[in-house]
């Protein structure tokens, strides 16, 4: 039994944390809010120097060929300071999709520049009706002599730090299909106003934009679901980082804020509230580690591991932030205190590529609760 990150992974965490401290922690997130977007590129190149962007990329295309567990400390630490950027979308969704479904030529064309930190890739998936798995896309991909041309509008597209490529979904004769589209081929885009101002979302319009098919046509949903297992495991780590910071901040404040001649942390309503945050944090951490392990080792309960982690952590992150605001009192309601940034980030992630309800339904399905299979053996994974 060894349920812990390895020594190297913990060392790597220390290095990333130090770098995040050098970046002055949430200062980068706040720079984005005040309109200074240069910081995003700075952070990406800093992370690239440390080798972060090469972690999930296979060695044949200049990466390190490491697994989901090696991303755990990275995303916990970037999540802890709400680092703005497309690290999750690029490293935990685009890379797994390209690695799993891309042709050798597609990988060779894109992954080396991802590994070196020069390129980031985003996902243009949602359409205006907002559903994650619509029956069909209104964005149409028509066949041309050299490939496909895409026409339609995508929304809720993360564009922070100027991604050069979008992975997008469009309707073909076979059904819903995945495509790679160059950002420079986007006809027009409109920035959307977002609750979490450390994010940038756009509505983008494609007008006969050249698209390169990714994987089998007609299988976009299955491919995205597979990619989302990687993404959700990483997203969970990022949220755990945020929760960890919330517990720290809140406990520290409860020790120094004095009312009625005593630190408020002595009042049990406050003390027990923070302990409950801590309980959720530890459960979240365990679930996120296990999800990453299951993804990395392709465990039989991989889907249940990821979906159950996501369902729990999405909710727990919001709750931790909300409770932290209350425990801080008036200062908690201010723009000045970072806690509000965490609340907005938690809300941003709640329904990002799937809701809590979706994750729970997926948990039930992956555990085959709706059929009648043999009972789970009481003896765990071995």
């Amino acid at each position, binding site marked *: *039994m*060894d*349920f*812990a*990150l*390895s020594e190297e992974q913990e060392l790597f965490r220390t290095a990333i944390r130090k770098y995040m401290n050098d970046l002055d922690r949430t200062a980068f997130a706040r720079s984005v809010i005040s309109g200074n977007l240069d910081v995003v590129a700075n952070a990406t190149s800093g992370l690239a120097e440390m080798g972060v962007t090469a972690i999930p990329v296979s060695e044949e295309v200049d990466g390190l060929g490491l697994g989901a*567990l090696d991303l755990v400390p990275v995303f916990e630490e970037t999540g802890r300071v709400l680092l703005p950027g497309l690290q999750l979308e690029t490293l935990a969704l685009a890379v797994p999709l390209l690695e799993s479904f891309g042709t050798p030529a597609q990988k060779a064309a894109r992954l080396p520049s991802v590994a070196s930190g020069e390129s980031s890739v985003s996902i243009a998936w949602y359409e205006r009706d907002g559903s994650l798995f619509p029956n069909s896309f209104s964005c149409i991909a028509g066949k041309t002599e050299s490939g496909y041309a895409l026409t339609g509008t995508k929304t809720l597209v993360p564009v922070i730090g100027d991604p050069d490529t979008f992975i997008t979904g469009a309707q073909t004769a076979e059904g819903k299909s995945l495509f790679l589209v160059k950002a420079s081929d986007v006809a027009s885009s409109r920035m959307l106003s977002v609750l979490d101002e450390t994010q940038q979302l756009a509505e983008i319009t494609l007008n006969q934009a050249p698209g390169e098919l990714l994987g089998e046509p007609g299988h976009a949903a299955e491919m995205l679901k597979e990619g989302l297992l990687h993404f959700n495991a990483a997203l969970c780590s990022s949220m755990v980082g945020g929760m960890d910071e919330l*517990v720290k901040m809140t*406990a520290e404040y*409860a*020790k120094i804020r004095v009312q009625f001649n*005593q*630190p408020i*942390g*002595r009042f*049990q309503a406050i*003390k*027990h509230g*923070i*302990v*409950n945050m*801590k*309980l959720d944090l*530890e*459960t*979240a*951490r*365990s*679930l996120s*580690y*296990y999800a990453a*392990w299951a993804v990395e080792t392709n465990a039989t309960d991989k889907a*249940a591991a990821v*979906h*159950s*982690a996501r*369902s*729990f952590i999405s909710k727990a992150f919001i709750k931790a932030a909300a409770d932290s605001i209350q425990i801080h009192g008036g200062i908690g309601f201010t723009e000045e205190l970072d806690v509000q940034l965490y609340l907005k980030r938690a809300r941003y992630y709640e329904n990002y590529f799937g809701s809590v*309800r979706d*994750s*729970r*339904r997926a*948990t*039930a399905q992956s*555990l085959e*609760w*709706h059929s*009648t299979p043999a*009972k*789970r053996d*009481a*003896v*765990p*994974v*071995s």
Partner: protein
Amino acid sequence: MDFTFTKKEEKFRGELRGWLEVNLPKGWLQGDRKLPEDNEHYSKFLRDWQRTLYEGGWAAISWPKEYGGRDATLMEEIIYHQEMVRVQSPPLVNYIGIHMVAPTLMQMGTDAQKEEFIEKILTGEQVWSQGYSEPGAGSDLTALQTTAVKKDGKWVINGQKVWTSFAHLADRCFLLTKTSQSEKKHEGITVFLLDMDQEGVETRPIVQMDGHQEFNEVYLTDAIATDEDIVGEEGKGWAVLIALMLHERSGIAAQVFTLEQQFDSVIEMAKTVRVNGCLLIEDPFVEDGLADLYARINGAKLNYYRNITHTLKNGRPGPESSLDKLLVSELTKELFDFAMTIQGHAGVLMNDDSVFSAEMQGQYLASFGATIGGGTSEVQRNTIGERILGLPKDLGR
């Protein structure tokens, strides 16, 4: 990260499984797990079971070989609990003796105490209880009022204990008393190994809300003990108490695995019970709630695995292991609360009339004890807040 068991560990598991198949009470594995109702037969049944465990070398595997244990590793202990939960083995009547009292005596008992008690604890000849709580001293044990006064070379003990588990079956009691009044509340406490078979000790069973009678009132009226019955030093009982608590290193394992098993049984129910022609699990409310519980129960188990890993690496549990009891006991309550809800009105039926399992309604009622016994959830939260998060101490603590 690695969840596999070593060959040696698997061999250990195989050995235990093989032994259980042959030695569990007749019909047990086939599902006939009814324990005798009346006290005498109940007591005999459980003592016999412990005797069987002892003869097979399975009563106290974590003990050193010299005392009749197996020097089991932490992982072997965990496997042991897993297997015992898997077959839903009869309870260990001398749990307190084996997991708490004897290890404490091995550490700080006198040679004479070791000689006199340890083997009898192992064989089940001597069953133990723990006398801490009193009417006026529950969460705050330092408020205890049971006194032991020395007269003519003997200790004379007077007072009342309450909620004393197993006292009705026990031969001895690990008893907390006050031997001197001191300004400092943790001083003047002395632990006695009290012989319960004497005139000055009267045990009255208390009926629990689940209908069982597992805990008791114990009245001490001029009960007698000797210097030889004192554990550690006179007046330094608090340190003994802390030492005893530290010995209970794997008890939570059984609770973690039991919770997992109980969850599986609720899933079975949701997959087999129909309401209005529709399986419970097809109701989105049921599916959603169970998936939420799955995440949290699995999370609690994984927390425990993380804590085991810490112990294996560092030789002692980390601070976070104090979260396990709180999480597991609270989740058990929530699980059965939800299980009751989804059964509809027929959920009020119990025993053989129960919708799904004859045990479930009783388990629901029993779940309320777990967040009180062994330190209430509120007290656990105080401890976690103060020890792990460094929050200021409660006034009066």
